[in-house]
């Protein structure tokens, strides 16, 4: 009988090759059809190359054959979680170009709706953030509260997601008689529910182990890569346009710009949680003071902008959203460019994820809060 020999394996015999892995386009943590070409050595990420275009819809080309009120309908479909802010940006840009000022009532309602959108967006982000980290419960908690905001949206303008409520010159409809009562009831309730989010996830050991000290982004890099929104504010880049270039009714309210100088995944998480508190503060200051007046101005049937270039920046739930309209005096724009926050944010991922493990890449991705139609537009 042959004698069995023990095979000796030393670590010198094991070699790891660098290899490429496609993460996506159908991957639960890319939150849509995004493909990341990840260059790995073992578990260590060496390079991440995002590939987009799976749902490119050619919105910028489409706008060239549409009138200005029609363009608003397309912006809903870009970043559908901050649909109201996108509408507002187009409406403000057209109003600035025509040099008209909307009534105070419109400004107040727009601001309240924008903050409700931000709350709903951050709630959904919190849901999927937990899911990405393997905590399914967060999904039910978040959606439970988000449902109430969507009900308010539905009551106000008939749509739950693609609201299309802000139009050039004002609002599509006046608010529902129950609007103030419902919003106040929601805020009162959500103030007791938000601490639950902290109890469920923020202090969870598994969650903090995977997020604290992971995926640093410095302030200088955030600026250089054009990262905006809560993602950049977690790195100390004070970029909140509501504070620095107030539009609508933001100059009439007191709120804090949430900043952190840590810049890791957990800081980005905390900034969004704190922003929910600030959003509630803003709504509470406005909801009882909505002035009487018209909800829309009388606009011409066909809106023609004067010749020139017009730029409007607003703070959407993901960061700075910009609308750049080039007009040649006709009823259709000559060229429209949408500066979407997700586009710039996405391409900073390579810089951040280098050297971290593949599981950390998932955590970093979820704190970037990507919405793919916003990037692919």
């Amino acid at each position: 009988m042959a004698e069995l020999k023990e095979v000796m394996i030393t670590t010198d015999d094991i070699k790891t090759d660098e290899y490429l892995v496609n993460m996506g386009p159908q991957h639960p943590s890319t939150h849509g059809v995004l493909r990341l070409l990840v260059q790995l050595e073992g578990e260590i990420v060496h390079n991440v190359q995002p590939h987009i275009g799976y749902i490119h819809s050619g919105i910028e080309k489409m706008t060239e054959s549409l009138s200005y009120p029609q363009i608003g309908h397309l912006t809903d479909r870009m970043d559908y979680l901050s649909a109201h802010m996108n509408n507002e940006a187009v409406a403000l840009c057209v109003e600035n170009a025509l040099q008209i000022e909307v009534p105070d009532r419109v400004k107040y309602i727009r601001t309240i709706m924008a903050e409700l959108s931000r709350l709903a967006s951050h709630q959904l982000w919190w849901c999927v953030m937990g899911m990405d980290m393997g905590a399914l419960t967060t999904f039910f908690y978040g959606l439970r509260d988000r449902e109430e905001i969507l009900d308010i949206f539905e009551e106000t303008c008939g749509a739950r997601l693609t609201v299309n409520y802000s139009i050039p010159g004002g609002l599509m409809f006046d608010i529902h008689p129950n609007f103030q009562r419902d919003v106040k009831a929601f805020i009162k309730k959500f103030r007791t529910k938000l601490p639950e989010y902290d109890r469920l996830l923020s202090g969870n050991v598994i969650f903090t182990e995977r997020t604290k000290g992971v995926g640093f982004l410095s302030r200088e890099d955030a600026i250089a890569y054009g990262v905006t929104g809560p993602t950049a504010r977690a790195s100390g880049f004070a970029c909140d346009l509501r504070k620095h270039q107030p539009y609508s009714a933001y100059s009439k309210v007191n709120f804090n710009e949430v900043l952190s100088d840590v810049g890791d995944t957990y800081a980005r998480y905390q900034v969004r949680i704190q922003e929910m508190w600030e959003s509630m503060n803003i709504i509470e200051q406005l909801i009882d003071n909505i002035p009487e007046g018209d909800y829309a101005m009388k606009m011409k049937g066909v809106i023609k902008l004067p010749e020139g270039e017009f730029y409007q920046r607003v703070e959407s739930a993901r960061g700075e959203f910009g609308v750049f309209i080039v007009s040649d005096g006709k009823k259709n724009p000559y060229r429209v460019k949408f500066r979407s926050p997700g586009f710039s944010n996405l391409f900073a991922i390579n810089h951040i994820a280098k050297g971290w493990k593949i599981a950390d890449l998932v955590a970093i991705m979820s704190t970037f809060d990507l919405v793919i139609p916003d990037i692919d537009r």
Partner: protein
Amino acid sequence: MTNEELITAIGKVEAEAETRQGAQYVETTVPAARMYDFMNQLKQDKTLAFDYLFCLTGMDQADHMQVVYHLESVLHKHVLVVRVKTADRENPVLDSVSDIWPTAEFHENEVYDLLGIRFNNHPDLRRLFLDENWGFPLRKDFKDDIHIVSR
């Protein structure tokens, strides 16, 4: 820095730049040959310090192509719009600014994809949304009989 001071400061950086106060921001136009040095100065100059490129747009202007850069200084809070025209419409080429502002790399990819403007010294110039068989859809003479219905 006020807008008037900004206009004078830009005149000192680049004599060939045509600067004026636009409806919203200070706007300047620079020749394509001088643009890279000019942009580098905008970033490096301590009093200008344009460190945040927040929008990069490509445009088809019938007889030439144009790229518009929206720049902001985070420190000084001033905004500048830089306009660069290409000499050739069919094969437009400009210098890349991706080593000055890393975010430009992907915005330039987008401009190349949709308008066909090529960028010199770009680290990875590739089509971002569409595949190689497409033309350049944001050009005004782009024809697509299947997907675009013209009235």
